[in-house]
């Protein structure tokens, strides 16, 4: 099958298939569960098939021109396939988990319809190379997350779902204005055309602000982040899907796709965005330390970790961006695990307040261990994947000479360790208050253990990840096939060669974070 067909299948099988889910659901629940998992698995398989092709540097494009610059273009490069893999793998684990979780609740058809549509539109965002297609899938995710957060029909839950929908739509509309502004100058919504028009001059700052508003609202960063903790009222596979793995990554992906690999922006943004990310990391870490609701704490921690990812991507040098991408993967896995464990705890104890929980580790050992493993990975403690991601992000910040920002993020990391340990201790250790429940159902526990094992593997087998990661970053920055006149990024693999770190023309804005060659003392 041609690669183009596979790409289209990866996107449109879940999107179109989701429409059929409620009807199958009317027939039989089991069939619906299996079909939804198959639909999501389709995109997993699709991305896997595309992986080797894309890793060799080829870019697959499918485009259909339409009048007035609205043409449909889908492009799959390394960044896209990476993001597709991350979200579809975690998505399928979550769909598998929700077989067990959603069984006792009503309107399950709507739930599965929305989850599959959500993952499908995530694929759409990742592969689309036209701003309007990107915007459409972006809004579909906002729409599906509204329905999913509002899954329990109590009035105040729906109020919170409405609030999150409003904030995200407000951000999205501001972003649309930014897109229209770019459309005004570039004449078309197609990313390739935009890339040419803005190759030399940076994009006007107002457009950047508007688009940033959208990105900040979707990835829940400081000024527009309060909807994420409130969305904790959703069923926990949804919070796992939304907060941890996929929804918040959309904002970050679009930042990477737009501001890192397509248009170059004024230098001020290379310090402004990390500052915002730093503030967001700190504030939400502080809030996580104070809050007592289990899922709200984990949601605040997501907001804080998103700050780290933003730091990585927005800092402007290679290590930072590679760190950001790695962080997306590791955080997705670990945070997904945390939320699913929270789901098991909540389903077993029907209690959300951690001060009233305790001593669960002794009766729910597997969940406790997975929770501990995942929180260690989020804290960035070595044998687990989070360590490398955090290291690269901090190094990126330091090599970009942003010492104060690097230290704020390290302070954020301190708070992360403290609040995650506090949650772990209060829920799983100490004296069990009341009858401590037994272990969760097999389906749920197996998915949680799978996620923790993946986090551990991410840490130990990091070498399989850093290679492709660096290729992705070089492709994003347009360095892969050296553009004439720019020195390619030479990153030696054996350590006695000279180090030349030279930013490509892409990030010429910032004095390359580290351009001096190492003269002294090289033995």
């Amino acid at each position, binding site marked *: 099958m041609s690669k183009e067909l596979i790409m289209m299948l990866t996107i449109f099988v879940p999107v179109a298939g989701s429409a059929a889910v409620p009807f199958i659901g009317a027939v039989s629940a089991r069939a619906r569960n299996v079909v939804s998992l198959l639909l999501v698995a389709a995109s997993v398989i699709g991305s896997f098939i595309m992986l080797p092709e894309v890793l060799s540097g080829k870019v697959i494009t499918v485009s259909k021109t339409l009048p007035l610059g609205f043409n449909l273009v889908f492009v799959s490069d390394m960044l896209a396939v990476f993001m597709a893999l991350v979200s579809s793998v975690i998505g399928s684990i979550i769909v598998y988990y929700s077989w067990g979780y959603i069984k006792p609740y009503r309107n399950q058809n709507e739930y599965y319809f929305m989850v599959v549509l959500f993952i499908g539109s995530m694929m759409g965002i990742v592969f689309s190379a036209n701003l309007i297609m990107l915007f459409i899938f972006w809004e579909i995710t906002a729409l599906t997350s509204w329905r999913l957060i509002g899954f329990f029909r109590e009035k105040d839950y729906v109020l919170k779902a409405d*609030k999150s929908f409003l*904030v995200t739509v407000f951000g999205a509309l501001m972003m649309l204005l930014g897109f229209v502004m770019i459309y005004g100058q570039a004449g078309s919504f197609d990313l390739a055309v935009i890339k040419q028009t803005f190759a030399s001059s940076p994009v006007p700052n107002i457009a950047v602000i508007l688009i940033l508003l959208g990105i900040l609202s979707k990835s829940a960063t*400081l000024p527009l982040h*309060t*909807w994420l903790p409130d969305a904790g009222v959703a069923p926990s596979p949804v919070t796992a899907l939304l907060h941890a793995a996929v929804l918040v990554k959309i904002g970050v992906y679009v930042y990477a796709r737009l501001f890192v690999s397509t248009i170059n922006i004024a230098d001020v943004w290379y310090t402004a965005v990390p500052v915002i990310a730093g503030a967001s990391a*700190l*504030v*939400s*870490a*502080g*809030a996580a*330390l*104070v*809050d007592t609701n289990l899922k709200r704490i984990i949601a*605040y921690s997501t907001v804080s970790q998103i700050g780290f990812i933003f730091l990585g991507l927005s800092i402007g040098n290679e*290590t930072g961006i*590679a760190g950001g991408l790695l962080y997306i993967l590791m955080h997705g896995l670990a945070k997904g695990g945390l939320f699913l464990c929270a789901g098991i705890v909540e389903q077993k104890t029907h209690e959300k307040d951690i001060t009233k929980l305790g001593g669960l580790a002794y009766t729910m050992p597997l969940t406790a261990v997975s929770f501990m493993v995942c929180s*260690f990975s989020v*804290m960035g*403690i*070595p*044998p687990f994947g989070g*360590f*490398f991601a*955090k*290291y690269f992000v*901090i*190094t990126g*910040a*330091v*090599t970009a*000479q942003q010492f104060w920002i690097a*230290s704020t993020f*390290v302070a954020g990391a*301190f*708070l992360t*360790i*403290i*609040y995650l*340990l506090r949650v772990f*201790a209060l829920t799983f*250790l*100490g004296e069990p208050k009341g009858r401590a429940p037994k272990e969760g159902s097999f389906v749920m526990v197996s998915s949680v253990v799978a996620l923790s094992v993946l986090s551990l593997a991410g840490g130990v087998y*990091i*070498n399989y990840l*850093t*290679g492709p*990661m*660096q290729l992705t970053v070089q492709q994003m920055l347009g360095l892969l096939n050296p553009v004439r006149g720019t020195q390619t990024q030479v*990153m030696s*693999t*054996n*350590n006695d060669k000279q*180090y030349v*770190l030279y930013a490509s023309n892409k990030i010429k804005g910032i004095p390359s974070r580290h351009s001096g*060659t*190492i003269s*002294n*003392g090289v*033995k």
Partner: protein
Amino acid sequence: MNGLLQFFIITPSLLAAAAFLSPKRIKGLREGIALVATGLNLYFALAYFGRDIYATVPWGGGLGLDFSLRLYGFSSFIIASAAAFSFLITLYSSVFMYKKEHPGQFYLYLILSVAMINGAVLADNLVVLLFFWEGLLVTLFGMIFIGHKGAYKTAMKALIIAGITDLCMMLGIALTYYLAGTLTISKIHLPMSFGASVAFIFIMIGAISKAGSMPFHSWIPDAAVDAPLPFMAFLPGSLEKLIGIYFLTRISLDMFQLSAGSWVSTVMMIVGAVTIILAVMMALVQKDFKKLLSYHAISQVGYMILGIGTAVPVGIVGGIFHMLNNAIYKSCLFLTGGAVEHRAGTTDLRKLGGLGKVMPVTFASFIVAALAISGVPPFNGFFSKELVYDGALERHWIFYFAAVAGSFFTAASFLKLGHSAFGGKISEEFKKIKEAPFAMLVPMVVIASACIVFGLYNSFPIDKLIAPVLGEHAQSHVFSGFPHNIMLVAITLVVLAGAVLNHIYGVKKTGKGLGAVDHIHHAPVLSTLYDKSGQADPYDIGMKLTGILAAGLWYIDRGIDWLYNGFSVYSAYAIAFVSKNIRGASYSAFIIWSLIGAAAVLAMMFGKS
């Protein structure tokens, strides 16, 4: 390459997993596997001793991250000593942990820590070092956690302190990478510019916190009570100090040319001196056998840091030698403590007494180790302390005074400990107890004899193992043999005699061994200091500050949240009310509005032209 990696890291990890998974039914299988693992490790350490192997595996594929290991003189020495200690302690714990819960987990963490330490020492890439260095956090947390049900609080405390300091180290490593451009330790040689010194400070925080010095020490006394005893002998007692001081030396000598005059070395010396004094003062008043030993462990680290901090060859050699000696006698002391606990069931000095008669071997090894730690001449402690005194005096007398005062109090507290635990009348229920089992005695005797050997033939450790570390710094000077500065030796002897006199005075005054130091405890100025020392724990202060910071951030968050739930909702509904009622209700109001609108349209129409 795979030799290094294979024997020192992968096999121990696999064996650790095997030990954990092996079934409980077969008695002694787990202990056997643990012994095999540490024995193998010891064998390979000795086999590879002194060899100079360098190997790298392209691990990261890019981004400057390649898995490179390097074995050379200094690191092979550290690995050998670590292997020896871990073997002896495994032997000891095979009996001690037999009836305790979670023995499987204990051995898993034990052997994993050995693998991690080997990895950290062998690493030649800063990130790989950090990988194994922080890996120890997990095993540290695990080991304390399985102490008893309430031990998780101390485990949390240890993890938080170690985690935070390791993050500072990560920042330091990132700074070094930024300054040096490479992560390979052997390649990094940075002059002590301002940036480099900041990096040095951050990495130093990591190193000294692993070694357990003052500001980051408060988890060790709690762990002494909560954690299983072999853990105390194993990690805080010996191995952590080994790799902490090893890395401190590597950064001060290889990576950052620590010069004598620089402010960084003064900072290190101050930290060392403060740790010596405060820790030993706290140790003085302890009523529990294990807590007393743990405070001493902290104060001994002060000597090592002070030694290296002097940046003077004699001081550095003294510091490193003291690290080795301390590992020896500290683990021996902990083992004797363990034996006492194993037999008597308690380590509370108030209940203990007169055990010397019933546990002669333990008593004997306790005496040897106590004399060694107090720096009594023939034992190893004396020689390394002398070198440290020599280096300290060379820099400034205040540091020398602190060191000497430290050893005075050390001697006093060990006299008190020995007297109250082993001397005096034996109480009824302890009459029946027998000597510690053979498997526990062997490690004690071996280590005690090592104290003596390293004391008398100290030329082997100093000249063969430690001097080469200094490389070109100290070609001329020979350090081994009897300390050259006679005057220092005299002062030490006077100080020790003072300690004995003080002990006799104290015993006469209170009538029992335990009260030997009460007169110091209740001295006018000191008593107030002691009372306040309870709250002066840096960990508690830190947590209070974080609590306040978190509360502040929480209010910021709630403020932003109010912006959506409160402000925007009310203003929207206010505007809604106005726009709803502006219309009026009767048709004449509508017609008036239409006329107004018409006027506006016509005004626009004709206003233009």
